[in-house]
C-alpha cells in the first residue's frame, strides 16, 4: 500500500461537520416527509433518511476537485456536498429561488460549482457521467476523483455495469458506491441482484469490491477514504457496497406493504446518528452538549429553509422558455 495520499484522522471539527451533515440530512428528510403529507410539496420525493452515514462517510473524504453523481434519492448527497439547504428546500417546493429555479425539483437538484452533478431521475443515469468527469480529471491532471452513488436497483442497470467496465479499462479515478437499501421500489435486492452482494460484481470488472455496514459512519468513512485515496493515486476504481435500509418508502405516499418490521429495528438498534453520537461521546471526542448545539442549529436551519421556501415566489411564464440552450 502506498502512502502518497495522506490519510488524516478525523479532528474534532471534522466530527462536528460530519454530525452536522448527517443531522441536517435527517432533519431535512423528516421535515420534507411531514410537509409532503400536508400536500404543499408537488411531485415525486424520495427520502434518504437512514442512509446518512453513506453520503457523509463518502463526501467527508472529498474536496473541491471532486465530483459526485447522485440518484433520485439525492437530498443526502446534495447536503453532504454542501449544496445550499434553503435553495434545496425552495427547489422541492418548486420555487423560483430554488437550486434550479424550480425547473428541476427534488430529482434534479444539482450544483456543479460544488462538484454535485445532479440528482438523477434515471436509475443508473449517473455512473456513465462520472466516468466522464473522472476522465476529465485524469486528462487535465487535477487529481480529482469522481464518485457515482447508485442503489441496488441501479446496480442492475446496463449503464452501471458498462461504467464499471469502462472505468477499469480506462483506469479512471472513480469510486462506485452502491447504496443497497434492500429495495428497488418494492422489489427486494435479495431477489433482484443475482450475485446477492453487489460488491461481488467488482471482481468481474477487475476492481476491488467491499461491503460496508452502511449504518456505521466510521466504516463508511474508512472504506471511502481508502478507495478515494487509491483513485487519487492512480490505482483505479473501487466498488463499495453500503448495506442498510431506508426509513421511508420508495417515494412519499408509498404505503410500504411489501416491507416487514425492519425499519423499527433499524431505527432502534442500528441508526447511524445514534451510533455516531454514542461512539464519539464514549470516546470523549465530542460531548453531548456539542451534539445538542448542532441539533439546535440544524433545526433552526431547516425551519428557516421551509419558511423561506413557502414564502418564495413561483417561477413565471417567462422562465418556461429560458435555459434550454446556452445559445440557440
Amino acid at each position: 500500500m502506498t502512502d502518497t495520499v495522506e490519510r488524516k484522522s478525523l479532528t474534532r471539527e471534522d466530527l462536528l461537520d460530519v454530525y452536522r451533515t448527517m443531522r441536517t440530512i435527517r432533519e431535512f428528510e423528516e421535515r420534507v416527509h411531514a410537509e409532503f403529507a400536508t400536500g404543499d410539496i408537488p411531485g415525486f420525493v424520495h427520502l434518504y433518511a437512514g442512509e446518512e452515514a453513506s453520503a457523509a462517510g463518502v463526501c467527508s473524504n472529498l474536496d473541491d476537485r471532486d465530483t459526485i453523481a447522485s440518484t433520485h434519492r439525492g437530498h443526502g448527497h446534495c447536503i453532504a456536498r454542501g449544496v445550499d439547504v434553503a435553495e434545496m428546500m425552495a427547489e422541492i417546493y418548486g420555487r423560483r429561488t430554488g437550486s434550479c429555479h424550480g425547473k428541476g425539483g427534488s430529482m434534479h437538484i444539482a450544483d456543479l460549482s460544488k462538484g454535485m452533478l445532479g440528482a438523477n431521475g434515471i436509475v443508473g443515469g449517473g455512473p456513465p457521467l462520472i466516468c466522464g468527469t473522472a476522465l476529465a480529471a485524469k486528462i487535465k491532471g487535477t487529481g480529482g476523483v469522481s464518485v457515482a452513488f447508485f442503489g441496488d436497483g441501479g446496480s442492475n442497470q446496463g449503464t452501471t455495469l458498462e461504467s464499471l467496465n469502462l472505468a477499469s479499462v480506462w483506469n479512471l479515478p472513480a469510486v462506485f458506491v452502491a447504496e443497497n437499501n434492500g429495495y428497488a421500489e418494492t422489489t427486494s435486492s435479495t431477489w433482484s441482484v443475482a450475485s446477492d452482494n453487489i460488491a461481488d460484481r467488482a471482481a468481474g470488472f477487475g476492481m476491488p469490491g467491499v461491503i460496508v455496514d452502511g449504518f456505521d459512519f466510521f466504516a463508511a468513512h474508512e472504506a471511502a477514504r481508502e478507495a478515494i485515496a487509491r483513485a487519487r493515486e492512480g490505482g483505479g476504481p473501487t466498488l463499495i457496497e453500503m448495506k442498510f435500509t431506508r426509513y421511508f418508502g420508495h417515494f412519499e405516499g408509498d404505503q410500504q406493504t411489501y416491507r416487514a418490521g425492519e425499519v423499527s429495528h433499524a431505527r432502534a438498534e442500528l441508526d447511524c446518528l445514534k451510533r455516531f453520537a454514542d461512539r464519539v461521546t464514549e470516546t470523549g471526542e465530542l460531548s453531548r452538549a456539542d451534539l445538542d448545539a448542532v441539533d439546535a442549529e440544524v433545526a433552526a436551519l431547516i425551519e428557516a429553509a421551509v419558511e423561506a421556501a413557502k414564502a418564495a415566489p413561483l417561477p413565471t411564464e417567462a422562465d418556461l422558455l429560458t435555459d434550454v440552450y446556452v445559445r440557440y
Partner: protein
Amino acid sequence: MGDAVVGVVANPLSGRDIRRLVTQASVFPTAEKANMIQRMLTAFGAVGVHRVLLSTDLGGISAAVFRAIGRRRGQEPKYPRWPEVEFLDGQPIRQTAQDTVDAVRRMVTAGARVIVCLGGDGTARVAASAAGDVPLLALSTGTNNVFPAVREATVAGLAAGLIATGAVPAQGADGVTARAKLLEVRVGDRVETALVDVATSTERHVGARAIWDPATVTQLFCAFAEPDAIGLSAIAGQLLPVARHDPHGVTMRLAPDAARQVLAPIAPGLVVPVGVSSIERLEAGPVHHVDARAGVIAVDGERELAFGPGEHPAVRLRADGPWCVDVAAVLAASARLGLLERVRNFNPQGG
C-alpha cells in the same frame, strides 16, 4: 427420522471486507459457498447422515441450495442421495454476526452432533461461542484465516458425517476431536472471545473492522502462533511459535521503532516489518490487563470493542475452547475401521 444430524452454517458476508480494497485480499463467491454445501450434502448422504440443518441468509447461499434441491425433486435416481435438509428460517435475518449465533444455537437445540461452519476466523469465532460442546468443523471461505481449514468440502463432509453418525466416535481415543484454546476479552460488562489472537489498536473506532496497519497495534495476545500463519499471529509465529495443541499461548508488545523487527504477512497481500519490544509465553488462566488507556480491541483480526479511559480491558487465555473436528484424524480412523469399504450390490438404504 434418525438422529445423525449435522448443522451447517455459512456466512454470506465473509470475504468482502475492506481488505479487498487495501490489500488485494481474495474474494470468495457466494456461488462457491453454495457449491461447497452441495458437495458436503453428497458426502453426508454417502455416509448416512439423516438430516442437515442449514442456516438461512440473504446473501443467496441457502437460496442456491434450495434451488438445487428443487431441481433434484422427482429425479432422485439420477443423483447421489442427499440427506433431508431443513432450512432454519422463520427468524429475522439482521445481516450481522447475531445471525450466526442464532443459527448455531438452534442447531445445538435441534440435536446437531457436529456443526460445519463456512467462513473465516470471524465466523468460526462467533459459531464457537454458541456451539457449546458440539464439535465444530470450520472450513475457510474468508480472508484472514488461521483457524478454519482450507479443505475440500467433500472430504470435510465425509469427516463431519462420520462423526454425526457415530461411525467414528467423537470422544474416542483417536484425537478425532480436540478442544481449542480460547482468548477471552472483558471490557466492563462486554465480553468477546477470540480463537487466534487479540490485539489492541490505537484506532479510536471500530470503523471498517479489519486491521491492516501494524503501526496501530500495541499489544498482541495469541492462543497459538504458527510459523506459516497469515494475520497478526504470524508475527509471533516467526519469533516464538506456539502450536494449536500446546497448553500455552504467546503475548507481545509492539512498537514501530523497536529494535527487534520481524517481517510478517499480517494480512493477505501485506508483508511488513513489525517492531516487537517484548515477547513472552502466555499461560492459560491469569488475567492480563492491556496497557493502553483508550483504543480498540480487535479479536481474530477484526476491531470489535472500543474502550476508553478507566475501562481497563482484561485478556485471559482459556483452555476450554470449542471442540474441533480433526478431518485428517477422522478419515484416518475411518481407514483403520474400514468404514468406507463396501461390497458390490451394497444397498445404501439398508445402512
